[in-house]
């Protein structure tokens, strides 16, 4: 807050990240410096009230989600870690 007066955006063009690994690597490498204009621009003209399109809303958010899967990569690593280490203790 408060520092948003200047508007210099130095983000690189958006890249598509295929995997999460790509993403975190790229992010770690680039110290992305973003000084953005924080200002909310007021609306000069009247805005028509449109009812939200439920499909659009559904396409934007996942809200019926819970973790049930244990076959992803992270879970597999987790399983291995627990199995190896608890075997060692016994």
């Amino acid at each position, binding site marked *: *807050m*408060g*520092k948003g*007066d*200047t*508007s210099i955006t130095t*983000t690189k063009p*958006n890249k*598509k*990240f295929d995997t*999460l690994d790509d*993403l*975190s690597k790229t*992010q*770690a490498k680039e110290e*992305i410096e*973003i000084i953005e*204009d*924080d*200002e*909310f*621009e*007021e*609306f*000069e*003209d*009247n*805005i*028509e*009230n*449109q009812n*939200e399109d439920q499909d659009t*809303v559904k*396409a*934007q*958010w*996942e*809200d*019926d*989600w*819970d*973790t*049930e899967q*244990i076959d*992803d990569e*992270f*879970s597999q690593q*987790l*399983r291995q*870690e*627990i199995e190896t*280490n*608890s075997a060692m*203790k016994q």
Partner: protein
Amino acid sequence: MADLNTYLNQINDCVTKEHGKVFAELISLSEVITITTYQQQKQSFSNKIQETKYNSKLLQLKKIDQIVRKTADLDSLLQNKIHPHGTNETQRESYCDMIASRLRAITSIFDSNYDDAFNYLSESITAFIKVFEVWSSQAMWKFTYDIRIMAKLANTVESAEKKADYYEEASRILNRCFQASSTDRTTDLSQSKKKAAMGIVNQMFHIYFKLNNLKLCKNVIKAMESPLYPALESYPLGQLITYRFFVGRLAAFDGNTQKAQQDLLFSFNKCPSTGSSAKNKRLILLYLIPMQLSLCRFPKKELLLQYGLNQFVGIVEAMKTGNIKLFNQCLSTNQNYFIQKGIYLILEKLKNIVYRNLFKKIYLLNHNSRVPIQNFVIALKWAENDTVDIDEAECIISNLIYNGYIKGYVCHKVGLILSPKDPFPQIWKS
């Protein structure tokens, strides 16, 4: 001379006919202030249509300004030319003062004398307040908007003599405007000057956020949401979107997640996604996402990429998978960005949800509702911090139980004993 005459006739005409919209356009300084600010900051218009519109208005103002500069006695000239019907002598005087100060403000802006420009605009507003009526509500919004962006422009210029913060000064002027609107005792709120209140309050929010004085917002919100004021929905939608954006952000700072989520989601859904509004939509989203995440409503990746909010992609993935390693990594990589936006602390609290999902995985892998504490210790050592011991793991678990993320209890000899029914209740309502 013709341009100035035409202008003054237009003023006479729309005051006589009470044409609020035209009047607001005629007294607007937004165009010249915005263009000058952009030049100062070497910024360019993001919206071509707006740029063309603003430039043609600027041209018009330049022509008028040339005549004003040649006029020896501006006040007498205006006294002769400004005669709206249906106004008494005092009101007429006020209109003259208002226009005179506005014209002088324009000259000052063209001369890059922003301190004078600010003061002239302030005088113009003082004169306007005396003649402000329900029909001129839109002009009230325009004036308050202009004094705010004028303060911003004046603040960008380093000046040796003037040390005062123009935002402080602008907030005093806005207070007077708010007073002028709120002292209307008319019981029929649709015919009250209070209809102008939200437009003024929005400018106050802008400035209070800039001054980092959020407690001042609360007083005006209290007034606005009292029954003495029109219902929020009765204000123009554009104003309501701005209003709820600020109110939502305040609620977020106060830890009132549910309310913040409702306000920000309203603003986000109602905000148009075209033209320069796309920038607003992105800004709303920046504050909406942490609220949604606290309620386990995850933004789809496409949404994040569409608005260039890549910083959240990893956070979302980490939350869903319970990958505390990735979560900590994402948080520290983007630490400066999140702190600057004032959402770092809110994001840090999401860690509880990551733990919940991580621990649920450990439970699922265990195939048994009695999970040895050692399993949690191993996982935490591996994924988060090598120094984690049994005490610390039990502490995290107890916290999750206390907060309702896990149903069960800790038994030192056995481990975490989970409730046979719904051990990991859904913490969000769909």
